[in-house]
C-alpha cells in the first residue's frame, strides 16, 4: 500500500491492518473522522479524539513522506523519537 486516504468522512471504529505491506507507504490521511481505539503495530490507526498515542510502529515506516493528523484531537506528550522521525516527512 502506498496511499491510504480516509480523510474528511464520518468513519468510526478503528483502522484495521492492511493486506499488503506498509513499508512503501507514502501518504496516510485518516484525519477528520471519528476513529478511535488503540494504535497497534502493523495497523494504521491515528484517531480522532485519541486519548493515548502509541506510534512506535511508525519508527520503522521510513518511507512515509506525508502524515496528516489535523483535527485529530490528540493531546499528550509525543515521544522523543517522534520528533527525529518527523524530520523525514512533510507534517500537516
Amino acid at each position: 500500500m502506498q496511499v491510504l486516504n480516509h480523510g474528511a468522512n464520518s468513519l468510526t471504529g478503528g483502522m484495521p491492518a492492511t493486506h499488503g505491506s506498509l513499508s512503501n507507504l507514502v501518504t496516510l490521511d485518516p484525519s477528520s473522522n471519528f476513529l478511535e481505539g488503540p494504535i497497534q503495530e502493523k495497523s494504521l490507526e491515528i484517531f480522532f479524539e485519541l486519548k493515548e498515542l502509541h506510534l512506535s510502529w511508525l519508527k520503522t515506516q521510513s518511507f512515509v513522506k506525508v502524515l496528516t493528523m489535523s483535527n485529530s484531537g490528540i493531546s499528550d506528550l509525543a515521544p522523543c523519537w517522534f520528533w527525529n522521525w518527523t524530520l523525514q516527512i512533510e507534517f500537516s
Partner: protein
Amino acid sequence: MKQIGLNYWSNSIPSLLELPLENCQIDNIKPARKTNFTNLQVVDLSNNNLNHQIPSWFSNLSTTLVQLDLSGNLLQGEIPQIISNLQNLKTLDLQGNQLSGGLPDSFGQLTHLEVLNLSNNTIVHSIPSSFSNLSSLRTLNHGHNQLNGTIPIV
C-alpha cells in the same frame, strides 16, 4: 453542447489502445450499446464537463480496459454496480465529481484494481466489506466524502 460518439472510433479503429480525451470540453457521450474495441486499455475523459450519470454501458466498453479516468467532471448519481464487468481494471479514477449514493458491493470483484480514487464526491453509507477482496490495491483514496461506518481490511 459538445458530444462525442465512441462508435465512430470503435468502428474505424477497433484496435485502438488508448482514448486520451482529457480537457476536451466534452459535455456528453453518445450511448454505445456495444463497441468493437479489441485492445482498448485506457479511456481518459478527465477534466471535461460530463454532467450525467456514469453510463451503465461503460461496463461494455472493452474487457481489455485497464484504466478508466473520469475525474474532474460533473458526474452525478450512483456508481453503477455493473462497472465491475470491467474485470481487468487496474486504475479507476472518479475523483472530483458529484457522485452520490453508496459504493457498490460489486467493487469487490475488481480484484486487479491497484488504484481507486473516489475522493471529493458526496458518497454516503459505509465502505462495503467486499473491499477486502481488493488485495492488489496500492492507492485507496476516498477522502472528502460522507462515508460512515467502519473501515474494512484493505
